[in-house]
């Protein structure tokens, strides 16, 4: 019981440890460094494009579209193959009956 109260007291003190805190100030010469960064232009179009593509939402969307196109191509290919097989079979049947039919 005493231990529980002691822990609760510690928690209350820790929860209140940010009360009355002052705000942190940006480092000295911040503007100079900011201007140096802006002028150096480290964020080129390529860096930005890569950063955009590396976003999980964008990367997953691209992957999803890629898989969708892949799936579509596979399905159309299979259908095409089935059609070809059917056409071949029909052609074989026709040629079989043509060759085996008695001449008029």
């Amino acid at each position, binding site marked *: 019981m005493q*231990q529980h109260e002691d*822990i609760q007291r*510690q*928690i209350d*003190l*820790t*929860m209140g*440890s*940010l009360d*009355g*805190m*002052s*705000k*942190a*100030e*940006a*480092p000295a010469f*911040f*503007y100079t*460094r*900011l201007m140096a*960064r*802006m002028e150096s232009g480290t*964020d080129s179009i390529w860096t930005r494009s890569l950063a955009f593509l590396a976003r999980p939402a964008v990367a997953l969307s691209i992957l999803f579209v890629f898989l969708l196109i892949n799936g579509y191509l596979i399905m159309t290919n299979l259908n095409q193959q089935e059609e070809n097989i059917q056409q071949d079979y029909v052609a074989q049947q026709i040629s079989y009956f043509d060759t085996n039919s008695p001449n008029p």
Partner: protein
Amino acid sequence: MSILEAERLMTEHEEKLITRADESYLVERLKKGDESAFKLIVETRKDLVFNTALGLLQNAEDAEDITQEVFIKVYESVHQFKGESAFSTWLYKIAVTKSLELIRSRKRKKRFAFITGILGENNELRHDPPEFQHPGVQLDNRERAATLFNSISKLPENQRVAFTLHKVEGIPYQEISEIMQLSISAVESLIHRAKNNLRKDLEIYYQKNR
């Protein structure tokens, strides 16, 4: 309310109005490409952005980096600012978004570090940050504040943002609701849940470290 207090509040209100009018004037000048307006905006708002980023990121170097990115974003996309909210609210929004992006990327790296650890490349936890000491915390509270910041870093994203903005930056619920684009009651609920979660985490901590 005493007359003196009312007068003080009136003065504070007028000051806010003047600041907002000045801000919109500066923003208009910046939209026209005035660099002195940009410098003035940076000089007067850099601490606000830095303190917000520091509270969320718990690392001074990262906070400075994000503060720079926020002002670069302001410079590049000031035309998108329509003045529907206060300029400071817009700054807070950008600072929170950028900070969260960095936190997420750090988490991804940490996960990757865990995988490389499993693969036997290295067993060190290099991606774990050291204990954070906020420079604004009173000296006798430093140790407790570091423990609290450690617990804050374990909170879910929304709770972490709402609690930090309120506790570290001292922003009222109304403005937090504008920054996070939530209702005031949602912000209240987030902060209440954050406090409960922090108490639970601290209880575990103090049970282990008695």
